[in-house]
């Protein structure tokens, strides 16, 4: 008798599937529902030269500050309650990362194009702006129909691997968000070759419908290769309704951009630990830094 696949794995097992130089996407939005336990595992790894695709938040800042990023594909980077991400800013101002900017809507089209396996999707977004100067990957296309309109061809943002964080999932990879917004997590997984979902809690398939309506079941197991159970795994970003953003911790993280010494102290205190030790230290500290 055959049994369904159990896709459960650890962060470190998932990260072992990655290679330096890969293009890796992270779901969520700003400082909301980010797969942070996976980001922390990447920080502990020897991976370098990554191209990062993200609706940028502290995932981007942490990877930039740790020298993991060669190229950044993004429309914004923000910590929400702290509008400007200081570690991302420092990397840009030092000129240490390659920059591939998009408009937010164009970024959505790039994810959708990749998930639909077409090379681009057309849009008028970007016309007239300096995006066409600052992102040489962007090209325009003339409509083949009678209107003959010139449009921007938003290129497919294909990825080698993508990670998203869900409130609940089963061991087969069906994922559920219970917060206010699905963001674009399904598209990240559709755009990637290796696809991982981390979740606050792995539950049975039957129990998913006890947690929320069918519309909350955003991710199908057809889009998932690995399921990582990661309680508090989005910390310090928000994961409503399970928990809000840890604002005190985020402040300490942002403040660590002040000097190489303050970054080193933050890194030493929080980013050299295993995920279990990180969570234990948080609990001992009462939740905040």
């Amino acid at each position: 008798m055959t049994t369904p696949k159990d896709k459960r794995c650890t962060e470190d097992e998932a990260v072992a599937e990655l290679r330096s130089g890969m293009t890796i996407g992270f779901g969520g939005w700003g400082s909301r529902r980010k797969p942070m336990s996976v980001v922390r595992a990447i920080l502990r790894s020897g991976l370098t030269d990554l191209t990062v695709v993200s609706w940028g938040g502290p995932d981007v800042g942490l990877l930039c500050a740790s020298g993991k990023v060669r190229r950044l594909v993004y429309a914004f980077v923000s910590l929400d309650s702290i509008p400007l991400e200081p570690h991302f800013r420092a990397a840009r101002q030092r000129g240490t990362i390659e920059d591939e900017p998009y408009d937010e809507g164009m970024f959505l089209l790039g994810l959708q194009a990749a998930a639909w396996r077409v090379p681009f999707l057309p849009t008028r977004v970007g016309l007239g702006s300096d995006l066409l100067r600052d992102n040489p990957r962007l090209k325009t296309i003339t409509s083949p129909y009678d209107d003959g309109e010139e449009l921007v061809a938003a290129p497919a943002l294909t990825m080698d691997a993508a990670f998203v964080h869900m409130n609940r999932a089963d061991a087969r990879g069906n994922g559920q968000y219970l917060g206010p917004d699905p963001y674009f997590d399904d598209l990240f997984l559709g755009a990637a070759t290796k696809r991982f979902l981390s979740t606050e809690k792995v539950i049975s398939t039957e129990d998913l419908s006890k947690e929320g309506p069918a519309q909350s079941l955003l991710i199908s197991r057809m889009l998932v290769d690995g399921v990582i159970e990661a309680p508090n795994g989005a910390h310090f970003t928000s994961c409503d309704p399970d928990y809000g953003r840890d604002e005190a911790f985020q402040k300490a993280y942002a403040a660590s951009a002040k000097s190489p010494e303050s970054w080193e102290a933050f890194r030493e205190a929080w980013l050299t630990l295993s995920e279990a030790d990180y969570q234990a230290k948080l609990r001992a500290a009462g939740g905040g830094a």
Partner: protein
Amino acid sequence: MTDQIASLVDRADVCAVAVAECFRGDGEILANPIGTIPMIGGRLARATFEPDLCMTDGEARLIANDEAFEWPNGAVVEHFNPYRQMFSWVWNGRRHVMMGATQVDRHGNQNIAAIGAYAQPKVQLLGYRGAPGNTINDVTSYWVPNHSPAVVCEAVDTVCGIGYDRAAALGPHAARFHEIRRVVTNLCVLDFDTPDHSMRLRSVHPGVTIDEVQAATGFPLVVPDDVPTSRLPTPEEMELIATVIDPKALRLAEVPNP
């Protein structure tokens, strides 16, 4: 007489009314003001003269409440409006956004991405965000709470939101949805109602002189012979703002009285 009344009115309330006026005539579209006073001004427009506007809770819902920031008696939800839906509104032409601007120039070009040379900027900001898509698809206005020559400047370093010169270069068909309606600042209201769409002084807030506005602007504004004073809030509007829309007076922190 007007000056006496003006001295009794908070500058923040004048700004909120000026924001509200940007949405006059918009009808049944998504009014999407970003920022404290823009949120208040948008709510004010809907609660008074533009009742059919749709507005967000700042996250993923459209709600009917007049309160701008907190809904102690519960939010009245009209629609599920996650980010992916927001882009549909933008591309469907159903939105008037009021964005911030780190720089905005005489043609209405806006920058929120980076100050200095883009490749290695002096100051990295948010990124392009949605500014290119907003300005090519829908009416856009800007909110500047700190009017200075560095912000309202001769030329922006990076064009995120496109102004009238960029739109003109695209031609009338490609730019047929483009309109920069107003720039509301802590000192005045600006628009582009000139033959070549150069920025024009539309009104000065009570207590502000034309010279002060010009001194705070990085290029010569078009100044009509007769520049009116920005409309004062009515007693009804002041009451609404103070008791319903913004009872915690967050607006006074964004624009203190001079």
